[in-house]
């Protein structure tokens, strides 16, 4: 692998890692705050990506991404609404959460299969960032850089909300100690709803801006979800900073794995998981539990 190749894979890995962070941060927030394991997260990503590709016929790219974001919010709130039916039971029972969200995942995937006939679809990259850059003799698609930049921007906004607003303070307090937060007079219900909506928005946006690179296809609901899991476990559950570092690591492992061992790409990822968790079982920055 030449130096230019390494730089190229670094760039691809980092841009993908940033996209992955959008997905994983939503998952890790709902888990950290509401203690809810949401397996539908990958399906929300996939359906949003499909919605975005519906705008491929000359529609505006911004509109496509916005529609994907709205789809994400709607689906995520739907998941929350269904779990609200028996929240008292689900809240303390992870196994039931997993069965519930797995069932919803199957329903979402099947609806997507009916609506889009199970055919992989793609979204053309917007005109203003099409083409590619020439870096050290290898070409790097401009859109990937744009994707990474937008993802970084959204991640920055998330960080600002989390660290600098009253709402973010409530979320952080809830992640640390939910009972104490409720005792101070903040009711958890609306807060959970907001966090579910935000996590859906992030997954939807990730599906939308990822569509020109990854497209939308059946099976994504798992392939993407698994990468998000690896990020969450490596970063420490409920930990945004850890999720950010882990996203970049997973993005890089994915890019280099696919470049070096095309058939056995997964081994790089498994290797990363084994090495990191052998070193720090609680995740890079520790976790909620």
């Amino acid at each position, binding site marked *: 692998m030449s130096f230019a190749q390494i730089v190229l894979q670094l760039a691809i890995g980092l841009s993908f890692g940033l996209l992955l962070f959008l997905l994983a941060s939503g998952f890790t927030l709902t888990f950290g705050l509401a203690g809810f394991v949401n397996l539908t997260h990958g399906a929300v990503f996939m359906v949003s990506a499909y919605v975005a590709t519906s705008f491929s016929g000359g529609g505006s790219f911004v509109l496509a991404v916005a529609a994907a974001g709205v789809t994400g919010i709607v689906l995520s709130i739907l998941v929350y609404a269904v779990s609200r039916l028996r929240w008292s039971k689900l809240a303390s029972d992870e196994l039931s959460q*997993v069965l519930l969200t797995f*069932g919803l995942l*199957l329903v979402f995937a099947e609806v997507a299969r009916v609506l889009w006939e199970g055919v992989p679809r793609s979204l053309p990259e917007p005109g203003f960032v099409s083409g590619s850059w020439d870096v050290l003799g290898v070409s790097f698609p401009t859109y990937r850089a744009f994707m990474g930049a937008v993802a970084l921007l959204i991640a920055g906004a998330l960080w600002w909300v989390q660290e600098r607003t009253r709402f973010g303070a409530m979320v952080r307090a809830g992640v640390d100690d939910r009972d104490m937060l409720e005792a101070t007079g903040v009711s958890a219900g609306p807060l959970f709803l907001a966090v579910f909506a935000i996590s859906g928005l992030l997954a939807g946006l990730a599906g939308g801006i990822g569509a020109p690179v990854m497209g939308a296809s059946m099976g994504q609901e*798992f392939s993407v979800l698994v990468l998000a899991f690896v990020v969450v476990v490596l970063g420490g559950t409920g930990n945004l900073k850890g999720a950010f570092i882990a996203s970049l690591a997973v993005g890089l492992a994915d890019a280099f794995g696919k470049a070096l061992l095309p058939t056995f790409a997964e081994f790089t990822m*498994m290797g990363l*998981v084994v090495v990191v968790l052998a070193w720090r079982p609680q995740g890079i920055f520790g976790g909620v539990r």
Partner: protein
Amino acid sequence: MKRLLVVATVVAGIGAPFFLDVFQIGLVSRGLTWALVGLSVWFLLRLLSQPSFGHAAFFGTGAYTAGLAVSRWELDNIFVVLGLAILVTCAIAVPIAVVASRLGSVGFLLITLAFAEMLRALALRWRTVGGSDGLVGVTRPGAGPLPIDLTDPVTYFYFTLAVTFACLFLLWLVRRSAFGGVLVAIRESEGRMRALGYRVGAYKVAAFLISASVAATAGVLHAYLIRFVSPEDLSALVSARGLIIVVIAGSLLVTTAIVAVLLTFGEDLLSSRTENWLALMGLVYIAVALLGGMKISVSRWLRPRRRSPEAAALELAGEKS
């Protein structure tokens, strides 16, 4: 009541070929392999409180080993294949076990699912094991010293039944053994067991390997039953099936087999009626998650709301003994 249920299940199992047709016998055999997956998940969940969403990895590895054994390596003895499948599965399970058993219950769930999905992605692309087409032309091998012909569906059903009950019995023995006691003690108080000098990590890995071996056995039986191995054997649907069987069946071992067979018949009915049967299965999962445990909450309402700490402690002691 419990004994009666066990006897009834055994009798119904042995008598099944007398009142079911060949197709239904195949379905019951299939249900028994799912019961084995359920048992392997049950073992980790009940003894160590570890919810595995990744037993498809071991089921699939067993199935692939079984398929490759007859189609590539020309092994013609099901016992040899079973042994080999368990060995291969354990080799794959060791790193997963070492990593997963260091995590809490949610981390355990996420990482086992992640590993299983990675193996599936691998099987989809790896041409040597058939890629996305899977392995076709899988035939049933001989049964070694036993004078039986496994190609006969009824014989194969009895073989599956015997293996299922053998695994049931083995897991029951393990649970009652000193080893099982240590596992339960680790579940209840890991720190104390560590302080007592038990090598907690090694116990957890050993339990994981026992569970993976049972899932691998199920994979071998399933591969020879339907004579086909595909990446679908590694999919999350397999792991989810194991989990839902355990959740519906509750703590009783033998109900696992009954629930698994009923679930198989239900799935077959749905998939023969509509091609969107996965969505319907999804609704089943949602219903089980929302409705499960309803009875317990009802009995909780009936109980007096406030109890003194002494009464609660007494009740806890009663539950444990």
